[in-house]
């Protein structure tokens, strides 16, 4: 049974139209239909956060969203965070702070950090650890990631005044 339907959403500030079956998750659609493979699949059951995207202003795990639920939604993925082709503050801070090794968790951490900084521009270490609790990293450990988020917050405050 194929019951594909047309879904229209705004992805990284551009209108995207895609065909999808109700059984496809947003993660599958992003990766397999839209070729936005920056969003990663770790566990596909909501526990690891590798597939985190921002949907209508809120961080969600895209493996637990149906593609058809994206109708009319505004979605931001890792492909949409850089500024004019150069890394943004969060990306740079992760790179400079060696907050990644294999990197599969990184797009999810960066999207979750973006959601955190949109809510709290000057988070404490405690805020960061709580907010990132839904993102797992198997190789780097969390201290460097937390420090990178603090550095990113600081840098962004300098940039945006």
């Amino acid at each position, binding site marked *: 049974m194929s019951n594909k339907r047309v879904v229209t959403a705004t992805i990284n500030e551009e209108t995207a139209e895609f065909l999808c079956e109700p059984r*496809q998750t947003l993660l599958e659609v992003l990766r397999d239909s839209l070729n936005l493979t920056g969003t990663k699949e770790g566990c596909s059951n*909501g*526990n690891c956060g590798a597939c985190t995207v921002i949907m209508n202003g809120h961080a969600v795990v895209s493996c637990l969203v*149906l593609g058809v*639920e994206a109708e009319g939604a505004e979605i931001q993925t890792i492909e949409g965070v850089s500024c004019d082709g150069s890394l943004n503050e969060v990306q740079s801070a992760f790179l400079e702070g060696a907050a990644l090794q294999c990197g599969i968790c990184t797009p999810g951490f960066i999207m979750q950090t973006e959601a955190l900084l949109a809510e709290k521009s000057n988070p404490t270490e*405690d805020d960061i650890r*709580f907010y990132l609790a*839904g*993102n797992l990293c198997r190789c780097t450990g969390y201290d460097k990631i937390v420090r990178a988020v603090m550095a990113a917050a600081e840098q962004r405050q300098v940039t945006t005044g």
Partner: protein
Amino acid sequence: MHAFDYKSPEVLAEALQQLADSDGSAKPLAGGTDLIDQMRTGRHQPTLVIDIKKVAELNVLECAGDGLHVGAATPCYRICGDDNVQQDYTALADACNIIGGVQIQSRASVGGNLCNSGPAGDSIPAMIALRGICVIAGSAGTREVPVAEFCTGPGQNVLADNELLVEIRFPPRPTASGSHYRRMIPRNEMDIAVVGVGASVTLNEAGTTITDACIGLGAVGPTPLLAARAGECLVGQTVSDATLANAVEAAKEIISPITDMRGTQEYRVHVTGVLVRRVLETAISRATGDPCVVRPGH
């Protein structure tokens, strides 16, 4: 995932009709944080998924003269971010703040938590303590069931195939009352409760005597439990160590925890006692006006 059809009705009557027409082969979808994984693993294979999030009645979050109305599909982030909930229904805010992580809270609803009917569902003991009432709609009209009577077994509840949970309603907060929900987990965040306890307490004007108390327990039986006698034995008593000890013993009497990887039966009995005491202490402090801000993980 198996193939299924998807509908997203915007009107309650339409959603109920679709549910009735599908003869038990449809599943409502709220935040999908339980259902989508259950479909992925093949545990549920509905032929139709009815996305109920666009139905206005299921999205209310309103505090009025007759109390608080929480639409069944209202996501946790809205509930724990709501000033009225934080102030007057604090146990519910406590629970919504620890369900999953931030990403899960963006989508997960308390209606889904309740309808999934897991023994460890975190919002359920909190809603029992706050004396929540489920408003259920079906083809034959609406009915009301206390949250404490909603779950009937692990993953089972009183809903018929053609019924939807519309909202959970809570009575107005009495003056000099406070509430709290807390769970024990081995990690700081993102885990399933070993034991969860919710309590609400009302004090007399002087703040010395308990005039009302209600306690809900999670993860210590096949369903979340109302610890009725534990609550009743506090009424009319002065706030003291001995008073709380009576409630602790009464709560322990009704539980039947299992042994699993999160803890032995004996451990769960012990932790129930510790948590009942701590949760009552916090609810009592809140009843006296101390907000007792709880930071998850601490």
